[in-house]
């Protein structure tokens, strides 16, 4: 096997591995050794880098969608009346 073929196969395997770990990486749930490995891959792979950046941006946006309803007192009154029956 030529060096270039070996490198290409190695890069493909690394990319496949990285794709499977990105969900844990974005959530900071990877062990440190894997985190370092994925970080190194991120520096070399545009596709993974963009996926990580956009998923991380999504993580900052989604909590802002959380509504702040005020139904607690009304619900407590209604449920309280029903369970008292």
């Amino acid at each position: 096997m030529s060096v270039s073929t070996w490198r290409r196969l190695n890069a493909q395997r690394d990319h496949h591995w990285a794709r499977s770990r990105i969900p844990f990486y974005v959530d900071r749930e990877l062990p440190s050794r894997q985190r370092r490995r994925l970080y190194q891959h991120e520096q070399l792979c545009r596709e993974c880098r963009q996926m990580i950046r956009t998923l991380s941006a999504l993580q900052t946006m989604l909590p802002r969608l959380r509504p702040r309803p005020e139904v607690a007192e009304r619900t407590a009154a209604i449920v309280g009346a029903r369970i008292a029956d």
Partner: protein
Amino acid sequence: MRSPTAEDEAVLVERARSRDRLAFEELVRRHANRLYAVVLRFLADPADAEEVTQETFLRAWRGIDRFQGRSQFFTWLYRIGLNEAKRLAIRQPPAGKVRSLEDEPVPEAPDWSEAPEVRLGQGEIRRVLEDAIRALPTEYRAPLVLRDIEGLSTKDAAEVMELREAAFKSRLHRARLAVRRSLDEYFLEAEK
């Protein structure tokens, strides 16, 4: 007034198990807003969401003897609420088009992670996000709502859905990719 602690809650739950209605009402006060917020993600009508929230607490009251304390009270409660919401949602026509999950990236999509509207998270971007979440199939919407919007831990959210963490994580990731795809399409269109 001091904030409620896990110990306070354990005391309330124990009293509620002894049929102390006031203790249960306090549990309702503590959890109703967040439960309603979760339920609302699965039902188009806020009035339906309120009704399901109330029904969830009534079911919890009737079944509180069955709550063993092996999980946290709120994960048990959310599980009941989610099942109630899904039951009603099945009977209702979907509010919008539910898209099948595609997790491949959109070709030529720009890297929008630093776009100003993303940083602000308001206006049109918010609408795109809300539409994308509504378009998710229920079993993929739930992980995203519980974990990424409501802020439950992976462990707690997986417990609510009665999934192993690996299975939960897989669904969550696919949901995130589907929502990301909507943003890819939005920014690609904006470039034209």
